[in-house]
């Protein structure tokens, strides 16, 4: 191999613009053989566009690419695929309604005998690939859609190595995985690295990056800020490079909770929730932590009327409501910002105005009539107040970045002036800058006297944002601490249901 090919994939001076705005501005990226290379940056920094250029989805406006030292131009995804550059996206990684084996040997390479699919050979190839990943326990005949999320990711990885990928690009592969599953995935990725596969790893979870990756390229505003060995840097440094400021500045200062209690629940039980009691004062931000499946989201959904409770009482402002629908909860001033932005928060095909209006139809209508002008003015106010980056109320929400979509969800519920605001993972998959703005909005609402309950998987977020934190384990409350000065390890031990030592 010549010296030029110490990099398996090299992109030089890549530029790409849309509508006259640069998404990539003279970007360089060098991926070595057998490394795990993190690609970091806030939403809108250009990571997705860069991946799409690397995998032939977009043709760059200018710049060159080299694969193993040779100049190369991809004409579409399949040409990149053939050359050995494969990307796995979080959502589109498998075909759910065909078998695992077919997922692994999808496309041209289907083995045939006398013109018919050779099922035996197909399964053998599939098993071989899964064995390479030490995932032999995944049944190759099962429908891929019935696998767990981590198994689905493994199947997608198996397909990539089946086509002899030289560069494997993973976009947020751990978003749907539990901690245990993440470790399984990491083991597989490390084995692939040892076999010489180059891996580009995109994630918002910096702890993972520091655990797994060798080098990192950090992007901001369509440019590469730096490429560094992960061992030579810190999370703080990475964040400040990504956003251009320090992590401490992310969180707003805490306020002083009021005297009266805004929401109380007594011995509440329902699906996954067992005998939970808690109360939140006006102006207070309560954080709820816990592992996935601990019942924290279900608890919020019950308080918001989105899920029935089987026993217990809900008291809002001293009045027992025990509401059993979202509409009823909203009428008592209880609003839930749901967990899944794209499937529960916004209608992607509709405009910002329509999305915000649907939660506020009663207040903007008269005798059942609602004019475009009312919708527009409501949305314009929200856009200004929450600083939603958009072309105006008429813009389709699907065209906005994740952070701005989340602001639209927030706007819909904030416009109701809720007395009790419940937020489930309000900053998941959102860039650091927008996270900080959302923290500010949450604190701002609390300062106006609302009670806020935030569920989050990120302990630093709970510690930085909340006044008080309760932890849940298997449907019960397993611990409660004051947020100021709380210790992550202690919180974690409560999450696992152990009393702090």
């Amino acid at each position, binding site marked *: 191999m010549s010296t030029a090919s110490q990099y398996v994939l090299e992109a030089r001076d890549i530029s790409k613009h849309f509508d006259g*705005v640069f998404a990539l501005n003279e970007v360089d990226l060098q991926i070595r053989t057998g490394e795990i290379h993190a690609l970091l940056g806030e939403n809108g920094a250009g990571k997705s566009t860069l991946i799409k250029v690397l995998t032939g989805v977009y043709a760059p406006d200018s710049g060159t690419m080299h694969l193993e030292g040779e100049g190369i131009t991809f004409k579409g995804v399949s040409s990149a695929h053939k050359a050995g550059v494969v990307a796995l996206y979080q959502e589109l990684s498998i075909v759910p309604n065909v078998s695992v084996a077919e997922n692994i040997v999808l496309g041209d390479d289907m083995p045939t005998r006398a013109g018919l699919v050779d099922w035996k050979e197909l399964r053998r190839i599939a098993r071989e690939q899964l064995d390479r990943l030490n995932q032999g326990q995944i049944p190759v005949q099962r429908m891929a859609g019935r696998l767990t999320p981590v198994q689905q990711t493994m199947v997608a990885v198996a397909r990539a190595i089946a086509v002899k990928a030289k560069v494997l690009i993973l976009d947020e592969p751990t978003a749907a995985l539990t901690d245990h599953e993440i470790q399984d995935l990491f083991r597989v990725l490390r084995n692939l690295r040892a076999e010489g596969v180059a891996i580009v790893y995109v994630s918002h979870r910096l702890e993972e990056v520091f655990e797994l990756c060798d080098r990192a390229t950090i992007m901001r505003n369509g440019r590469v800020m730096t490429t560094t060995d992960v061992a030579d840097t810190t999370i703080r440094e990475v964040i400040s490079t990504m956003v251009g400021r320090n992590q401490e500045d992310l969180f707003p200062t805490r306020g002083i909770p009021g005297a009266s209690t805004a929401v109380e629940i007594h011995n509440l039980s329902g699906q996954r929730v067992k005998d939970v009691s808690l109360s939140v004062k006006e102006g207070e931000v309560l954080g709820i932590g816990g592992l996935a499946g601990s019942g924290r989201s279900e608890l919020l959904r019950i308080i918001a009327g989105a899920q029935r409770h089987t026993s217990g009482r809900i008291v809002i402002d001293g009045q027992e409501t025990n509401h059993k629908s979202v509409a009823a909860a909203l009428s008592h001033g209880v609003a839930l910002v749901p967990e899944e932005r794209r499937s529960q928060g916004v209608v992607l095909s509709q405009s910002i105005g*329509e999305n915000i209006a649907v939660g506020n139809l009663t207040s903007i209508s008269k005798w059942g009539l609602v004019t*475009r002008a009312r919708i527009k003015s409501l949305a314009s106010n929200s856009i200004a107040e929450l600083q939603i980056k958009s072309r105006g109320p008429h813009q389709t929400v699907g065209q906005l970045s994740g952070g701005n979509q989340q602001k639209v969800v927030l706007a819909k519920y904030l416009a109701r002036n809720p007395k009790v605001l419940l937020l489930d993972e309000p900053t998941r998959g959102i860039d650091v800058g927008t996270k900080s703005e959302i923290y500010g909005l949450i604190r701002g609402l609390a300062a106006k006297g609302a009670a806020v309950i935030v569920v989050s998987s990120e302990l630093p977020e709970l510690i930085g944002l909340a006044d008080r934190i309760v932890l849940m384990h298997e449907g019960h409350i397993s611990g409660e601490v004051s947020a100021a000065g709380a210790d992550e390890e202690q919180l974690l031990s409560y999450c696992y249901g152990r009393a702090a030592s």
Partner: protein
Amino acid sequence: MQTRAAAGEGARRYTSALGAMKSGGTIIGFILLVAVFGMMRPEVFLTFGNLRNVLEQVAILAIIASVQTVVMVVGNFDLSVGATASLSGAVVAQLLIGGQGIAVAIAGALVVGALVGAVNGYLTAYLKLSAFVATLATMTSVSGLAFIVTDGTTLFGLPQGFMSLGQGRWLGLPIPIFVAIAIAVMVWFVLRNTTIGRRWHAVGGNAEVAKLSGVHVNRVRFLAFVVAGAGAALAGVVLTSRLASATATSGDSYMLLAIAAVFLGMTISKEGTANIGGTLIGVGILGVLSNGLNIIGVSTYVQQFLTGIIIIAAVAFSRLGNKGVS
């Protein structure tokens, strides 16, 4: 920065022009259709009398397609509208023959239609059956009811006053045209400017989002079907009045045409959602096609074949356009 902004503006104008061309494709097709028939037989096709004929022929389809639009905005569809029109047309005839007053007979037919819609709505919204299965089943049963009501015969001998609804004229135009316009305008207004209209859009866009925004999703979906049932019944009443008779199957053919019209109309909207303006253009295309082909002497068999081809062409064209823009 300024040049970038300017370039952005230019690019935006370019893409929106592309979008307009794509969404305009169906409209352009409609105009082309009129132009072609106009050139082939200008002395027949482009006369006031013939255009009035076209409008008269499509009026009933326009009513059914308008209410079908509502159901399709909510993200469902209703296969039973044609059968409901037949049944209601038979009910109004039977009531009139039985000596009821015109107003009572019409009201009775509308109530029957609304009830069918309520059954569809209940099955779909509350029992969560797929709209396909639920409305296919009600279509079958309602069709059976229509045969029971007519006893398999043609009902006629209706009072003259009732017939003026379907055969009378106002300002030189047949009254069904005005009924169709009134229904279309009502549906347009309700979809656009009322809270129930906004809720229909939200439920059709994403029912879970709507629910978590405080919308009573089931109730809203149910209402859409009731509207479709009542609208189909009205169309059936007008049809009976126009034909001066009723059979168990007079309205059946409108179901597929109405769905086709809404689909054609969906190609006009950028997001591909059902919309009343598009639906009316779809109705227009189907009406002009049938009328024009008749005039140039194409047999009804060939007409039916061509109608299918045109629907495929329009929907495929809008798909291609979509790909090009995104």
